[in-house]
């Protein structure tokens, strides 16, 4: 399920948020359904509950999940689209720039790279 990398040094609460986002994108946590509680995630992955809560609060602030009193956290309607939108917005600087940088270091030309991308879409 979740795939944490505790040795990466990446803040754990951000990893928690990212992993839940990932599960929302791929449909593991469908819109309108309840997601695991802070305690469940804390117990299963040995993460301090305060850290898990911080990650969840990030998602609440971003309008992806909402708290229903006495029940738990639920994925809001339209969350999947929101996450996708947010990821699209950072896609260029997060993914493309790295990709181009690596391509350059391997002396792959722009045309070649574009060709590869087209090929990737065809598969």
């Amino acid at each position, binding site marked *: 399920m979740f795939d944490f990398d*505790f*040795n*990466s*040094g*990446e803040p754990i609460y951000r990893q928690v948020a990212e992993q839940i986002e990932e599960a929302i994108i791929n449909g593991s946590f469908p819109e309108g359904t309840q997601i695991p509680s802070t305690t469940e995630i804390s*117990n*299963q992955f*040995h993460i*301090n509950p305060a*850290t898990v809560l911080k990650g969840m609060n990030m998602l609440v602030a971003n309008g992806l999940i909402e708290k229903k009193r006495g029940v738990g956290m639920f994925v809001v309607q339209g969350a999947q689209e929101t996450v996708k939108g947010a990821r699209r917005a950072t896609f260029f600087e997060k993914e493309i720039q790295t990709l181009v940088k690596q391509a350059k270091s391997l002396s792959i030309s722009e045309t070649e790279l574009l060709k590869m991308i087209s090929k990737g879409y065809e598969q």
Partner: protein
Amino acid sequence: MSVLDVSHISKSFGNQTILNDVNLSFSGNKIYGLLGRNGAGKSTLLNIITNRLLPNGGKVTINGDTVDNNDEALSHLFLMSEVNMYSNGSKLSKIIDDTELLYGSIDRQLVTELANKFELDLNQRFGKLSTGYRSIFKLILALCLPVEYVLLDEPVLGLDASHRELFYSEMLKTYADQPRNFIISTHLIEEIATIISDVIVLDNGHVLLHDTAENVLAQSSVVVGPKADVEQYTQDLNVIGKESIGQLAAFYIYGELNDRPIPDTVKISPVDLQKIFIFLTNYTNGGNGSEK
């Protein structure tokens, strides 16, 4: 809110100083990681907090009341350590009864539940248990008592991987059910890195670092790239450790990075707690030290 204060604690054995003016404060139902190399004074500190050892100077208080010779303050503490405080001839069930008598209560249901999960037969005598099961028994007591401060000194000593996993899960479960302060001293930093919210590093008898785990991680980074570029970039930064292979260098930084533009050739990444700890407490390989 309950506060445990350690102020100006010093302790020496003979002419060997173990702790030197240690000041710490614990509160807010957090999980503290007490880290330090062997002989840094972790166990001594925990034993002084629980009044098992008497300090040469300074005092430990809970909400302002000293723990020294004070049953009321001591009843808020439980220290689980490697030292065996139970007599070998006692049955586990009898120890549980006596512990309940002296602490006033114990969560019997949880004791039974945990004993089942760890497959611990409570009709055995303490002396018959293996090192691992002694730890398990003491951990069960630690989790089931109504104390505000649970002090664990090398809690998973002798436990196999699956029992360690089980312990961390159960600990977090009781923590969620009943938030209280945990102070965990261990050298297995990786295992508790995500569990703790606060980090205390003891080094040579004094407190080297006391901050939230998040701040410590945020303060730390590693600069990797060609040696010359890395050296150039990290010139006035607080370099706590260096690694290099050939011309490739990795400099570990603790503290703020500067505003200087980052050269294309170097990459800056976060560092995990274990690495930070190793470099902070390793003087021979420190800022101006030699390289591997």
